[in-house]
């Protein structure tokens, strides 16, 4: 059963995610983009690149500049997700890479991610604004992350006798398959969204934001 969870189930889940992602990309491309007929004033390509890198440049947005801790949470949290997913394939396929040092680093980041996502769940439940804008999918996705990071932390020890180990693989598989149907599908929409943001505002010369002399 554990072997099935570690291998076949993971790949089935990954296949579902891949298939739905491909379908989603085709679905997005079915919609015609707005056609721009005006001559550009700015640099579209530069703006598109800047738009993609906005998350790596928190100083470029007032929201991330002022709430730098939220940006830090975001960064650690997403690194944690990447690590937890990568580990779910490293453990069964390349356990030799999971050295003591790697496991320690993974555990630190996953632990930090756990507390961050717990904080985010709390915010959704108690902050008036976040509460108001949250739907069941928002709560469910974040709650699943809390559980996932919790079991992932212990699963990094690769002790198959701990209940967290099979739970980690089961939840990973579930999440991978669930992602395309949830808010977590922003992974697939985000590159398109940032591309059009950069293209639109870059065309008008308003992005990247202007500072300085004429």
């Amino acid at each position, binding site marked *: 059963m554990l072997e099935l969870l570690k291998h076949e189930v993971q790949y089935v889940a990954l296949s579902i995610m891949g298939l739905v992602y491909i379908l*989603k990309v085709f679905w*997005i*491309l079915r*919609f*015609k*983009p*707005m*056609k721009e*007929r*005006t*001559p550009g*004033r*700015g640099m579209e390509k530069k703006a598109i690149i800047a*738009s993609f890198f*906005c*998350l790596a440049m928190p100083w470029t*947005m*007032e*929201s*991330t500049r*002022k*709430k730098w801790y*939220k940006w830090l949470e*975001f960064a650690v949290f997403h690194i944690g997700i990447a690590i937890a997913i990568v580990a779910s394939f490293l453990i069964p396929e390349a356990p030799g890479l999971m050295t003591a040092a790697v496991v320690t680093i993974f555990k630190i980041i996953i632990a930090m991610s756990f507390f961050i996502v717990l904080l985010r769940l709390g*915010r959704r439940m108690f*902050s008036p*604004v*976040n*509460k*108001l*804008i*949250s*739907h*069941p*999918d*928002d709560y469910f996705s974040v709650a699943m992350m809390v559980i996932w990071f919790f079991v992932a932390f212990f699963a990094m020890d690769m002790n198959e006798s701990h209940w967290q180990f099979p739970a980690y693989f089961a939840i990973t598989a579930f999440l991978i398959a669930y992602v*395309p*149907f*949830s*808010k977590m*599908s*922003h992974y697939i*929409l*985000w590159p*398109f*969204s*940032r591309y*059009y*943001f950069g293209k639109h*505002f870059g065309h*008008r*010369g*308003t*992005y990247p*934001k*202007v*500072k*300085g*002399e*004429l």
Partner: protein
Amino acid sequence: MSNRQKSEKAQKATDSFKNKMNRQAILSFGVCVHCGMCTESCHYYLATRDPKMAPAYKADRVRKLYKKYFDFAGRLLPKWVGGGELEKDEDLQELMDIVFGSCTMCRRCTFNCPMGVDKALLMRTGRAIIYEQGYAPQGVLDVAKDQWEIGNQMGISDEDYLETIEWLNEEIKSELDDDTAEIPLDKPNCNIVFAVNPREIKYAPMSLLAAAKIFHVAGESWTMSSTKGWDNTNFGLFAGDNKLGAHMGNLVYDTVEKLNGKMLVTSECGHGYRATVWEAPNWAARDLKFPMYSFLEIMVDYVKTGRIILDKTKNPVSVTYHDPCNLARSGGITEEPRFLLQQSVMDFREMYPNRADNFCCTGGGGAMSMSEYAKRRLESAKVKADQLKETGAGICATACHNCVDGLTDLIKFYKLGMKVNLVGELVADAIVWEKKPVIPVIEEVVEAHAPFTVMVIDDEPDVVTFLSTLFQDSGYNTLEATSAAEAFAWLKTAKPDLITLDLIMPGVSGLDIYKDLKTDGANRDIPVVVISGVNPENPGLYDMRKLQFEHSLPKPEGYVEKPIVKEELLMIIDKVLDHYKHKK
């Protein structure tokens, strides 16, 4: 609820929503993760701390349709992802309150969204689907109607427009002491075809006068249309009506082509610039052969090439600059006004935050025509008021007529004691040119005004005395009234040629007097110039626009804000009486 149970309008709005989805829209609708990072970028939220003013919440009121009809999971389990329907007419009404009443589509949240959600696009989509069903603030509906039927947003007839231009020609000739100075109409093959905001014709001719002065001194070859095609504003942008947007754009573009102009220049109007230069070519599906610029860009060129010379000592008062949203976030114009102000004023002070991070004047998105939301607008203006106060400047310059109105309102409401000017006006004031000394022939002016009688209605005796003295010194006869009763007692025995009316008066307010005047057969043809401020206690009640819409009253012939600038008031009175005389 099934589709059959929906009201007809709700069904049509839903169908319209489905048809409006393009790639950018589905991405902006779909990518939001409800992180709330946009929340503190919105002035409505910052001023009220009301969670329902958070941009993500407001966008979700429209997004629910996307979730229900387009989202993969939402089609099966809409409630799970926040999907929902428009079911009743009341839902459209409720949506109107959000998309029109609590968002100016300033795009500040858009620029602060890590996901790249263009919430203004979502709000405009929301506006579009309900506007098509007749759900929009009355002011928006009326202005849109005027643009469709008359070709400009203030319903100015060709006759009135031409008379104003004629009057402005006299002013510019007099100011520059040059008979060749004028606002040329329908002149073919010019370098510039100029399109303006109708407010410049109706209420704020000083800015058109300033532009005419700058063009003249720069030796520019320019012209304006004598009929439709001079209005650069476009309520298609605010109403979400791309057809109206295309119509207004086409009027202006056709004018440029008909006159064989080399370029189109829009006067200082934020949304007018955005709509004309960036949006309408797309709405009209038109590939234009001529370039389009903001007047700000043209002025910068004049200064840099030495076509106009500026003397900043002529503007000694400290000046700050407010970035209109449609220029800074949607139009790419942030440095030009700063360059011009640094060249034309002694003490330029930056406002913080500025450029694309600046806050909305709170009058954007057509908010100034939505009197039903005036109270909320002014409440949200606290953020802008704090920003302005922080600068300590005496003048707030901006490059948008809408912003002028929005800022003027909030400055009065929060008692900031600042003045608002357009950049072009300050540039015009700073222009150095050889002017022959003009010796006003007072006797001639007095003689010209002598046949006219102006009635002053204001509850404050000091103001009545001040205005009466001002008018008498200019040669007018005057009648004075400090209440409605006094005013109507006078009107039984005398018929003034013009009435100046204060709106905020105890008891029978100026609005009631205006209504009675304009519905009274004997007096309704007397032109009225409203002279008023804003009542901080209840701005909505004293809103002239609201009264007009509710009682189908004509617009006042003139409008002057308090504190009164004598020259401006006399110029407006002169203009109105001149027009009145021609009509008679």
